[in-house]
């Protein structure tokens, strides 16, 4: 059996599904962000694998865009988590049930 694009796509799909399971089970806001990182990472892996398979540099370009977007998302997400922690003294998601301060 030779290595082809299908293997990379299946690996990426597996990582994305594992991240999705984490997203559904975690109760801690930072742990939730960790799961989202796993999913974003799987997407970047898929982009690079497809681009390299086709011999097209657009895959790498899209992966770089994806990395930069994830960085922006994490920065804002962590700032929101710190703000929530300051207001509610917890980042356990089940205990944050009020919308209005």
């Amino acid at each position, binding site marked *: 059996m030779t290595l082809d694009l299908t293997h990379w796509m299946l690996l990426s799909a597996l990582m994305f599904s594992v991240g999705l*399971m984490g997203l559904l089970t975690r109760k801690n806001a930072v*742990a939730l962000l960790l799961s989202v990182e796993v999913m974003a990472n799987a997407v970047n892996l898929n982009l690079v694998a497809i681009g390299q*398979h086709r011999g097209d540099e657009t895959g790498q370009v899209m992966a770089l865009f994806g990395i930069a977007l994830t960085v922006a998302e994490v920065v804002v997400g962590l700032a929101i988590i710190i703000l929530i922690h300051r207001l509610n003294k917890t980042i356990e998601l089940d205990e944050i049930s009020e919308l209005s301060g």
Partner: protein
Amino acid sequence: MIGFTILGLILFVGSVQVVRCKDLVHGVLWLAMTLMTTAATFAYLDAGFVAGIQVLLYTGGIVILMLFAVMLTKRLDGASIRIDSDGWLRAGVVGFLFFAGLTAVILNSPMPAKGQIGEESLEKVGTLFLTRHLAAFEFLSILLLAAMIGAIVIARKKDA
């Protein structure tokens, strides 16, 4: 095939550990390992520049940021930071169905024609950034600036 198997196993185990481990700091460190292995995978795929950016931005930036957030939101009294999760059965069913659906789609769709990455791959990446994707590139810098200012505004103390 051997390289793929080794990298894939490490990536899978790392992802599972990020999702299920009970100690938040351990989770962040597992994530760092997974991201470094992804960088190695990019290098294995002849995308050396993306691998370098992955190490710089993800493992250098995000993981440190995550550790800061963990330290800021929990008291450090020497004990490990326990996090729990539940609903494993439901999440497992959803995750498995999602993976099965993706697998069906992947196995049933035609694969793109195989090509070869040339020697001057990095030059082409730079050229694509500054020609075809120039607008997205410029908007990305505005987005990063907005995210930076936004994070400062959200997280600063009101009386500071």
